[in-house]
């Protein structure tokens, strides 16, 4: 079996504008963690417009850097919030 997976990452607000759309598909090794997702997003063209340590949500909950992600997870990069 080839190791690796494709993870769909949701983008919002200024991050969606910067990266050209509401989501990106990332090829990541099995066992990749939230920190790997963040680093991969920043390696994309215009990815440096996303700060080094943005908040990340996995399955609609804020996640820590070391949380493991899988292909079935809903992963999102969360820009600074401004509700209210």
């Amino acid at each position: 079996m080839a190791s690796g997976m494709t993870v769909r990452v949701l983008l919002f607000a200024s991050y969606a504008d910067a990266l050209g759309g509401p989501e990106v598909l990332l090829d990541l090794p099995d066992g990749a963690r939230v920190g790997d997702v963040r680093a991969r997003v920043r390696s994309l063209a215009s990815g440096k417009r996303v700060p080094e340590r943005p908040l990340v949500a996995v399955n609609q909950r804020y996640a820590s850097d070391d949380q493991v992600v899988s292909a079935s997870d809903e992963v999102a990069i969360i820009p600074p919030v401004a509700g209210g």
Partner: protein
Amino acid sequence: MRTAIVDRPIDAAKLIAEVSATHHGATVLFVGSVRDVNDGEPVTGLDYSAYGAMAERELRTIAEEALMRCPGSDVVMEHRIGALELGDVSVAIAAAHPHRGEAFEAARYVIEELKKRAPIWKREHYATGRAEWVEQASGEGSGAAARP
């Protein structure tokens, strides 16, 4: 208890009616609306967007926390998304309790946590024609246009 992200105007009076009960001697209503200036720059309108499913979940969690902090209270909240004009209500929170202290505390807790945690964003339109996502910390004194 009820929380919602809505894409239509918010009727704050309905929220008051929703938490109304004869054993609730105190009701606090917080209403946030679109302000006409941000850091001295005239604002003409706002677009709110949200990570809908997560925002719904986060608002529900915040309301549940408020009820745990203030046992016996009830909380109803709506946050609007989409294009809003000056003066439009962006968020309304009604908190009720037998006594005023807990009603104030519950309402305050909900708005402060919402501003910290709910995945909701706003894009300000300025009188100059420019538009920008608001990304500064939106605490007291930051001057965000819809900072209630």
